[in-house]
């Protein structure tokens, strides 16, 4: 990709193309970049993954149990916005309870933008728990 960009810049320097044409070519290259990403790339183009899936396959007392949950990522984003509406006094109480439980997280320091980033990063997350009688998979699709 860098080579193609260099070629465009070289053509611009040699006067074979105008600055506008070079701009259009570079923009076209950037548009093609996500599509040309190989299967080895960590995640597809942003916005392609729409759901968070939780799949549990377990056996309890010889009875097979299957759980299949699909949650739209959009719902998580909306939930994050709802969390931003929690009044400060409730957050203070939640902080106290979290500290008591050994999870010293200050929820008042969490900004909606950070939570949004967290949701965005879920795209690349896959959790797999594999035990003899239980299999759990959490992933985005």
């Amino acid at each position: 990709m860098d080579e193609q960009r260099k070629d465009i810049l070289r053509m611009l320097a040699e006067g074979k193309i105008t600055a506008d044409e070079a701009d259009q070519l570079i923009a076209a290259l950037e548009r093609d970049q996500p599509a040309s990403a190989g299967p080895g790339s960590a995640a597809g183009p942003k916005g392609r993954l729409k759901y968070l899936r939780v799949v549990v396959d377990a056996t309890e007392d010889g009875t097979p149990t299957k759980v299949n949950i699909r949650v739209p990522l959009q719902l998580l984003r909306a939930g994050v916005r709802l969390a931003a509406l929690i009044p400060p006094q409730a957050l203070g109480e939640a902080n106290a309870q979290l500290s008591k439980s050994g999870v010293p997280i200050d929820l008042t320091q969490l900004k909606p933008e950070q939570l949004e980033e967290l949701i965005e990063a879920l795209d690349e997350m896959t959790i797999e728990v594999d035990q003899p009688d239980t299999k759990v998979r959490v992933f985005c699709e």
Partner: protein
Amino acid sequence: MMPQLLTVRVNRSRGRRPIRIWVPVLPVALILSPLLILAVGVVAVACAVYRISVLRALGTSWRILSALPGTRLDVATGNTAFLVSIR
């Protein structure tokens, strides 16, 4: 877009017919609109008490409602299965 159809399916133990319920959300919401208006009033009062912007709270609630389509919960254990799907 707000949810259009809520589907609930319950497969009970063997020999019993499964229960299937389809709930068209919009008509049910229209029928229950007096209760919904009452609920919005209660939410507005709660927001005022806790000093939260009513518009922001209602906007966020609408956003959550709009994000529900596509949600699916499927639990099966032994001969019993339970499915909730929102479209």
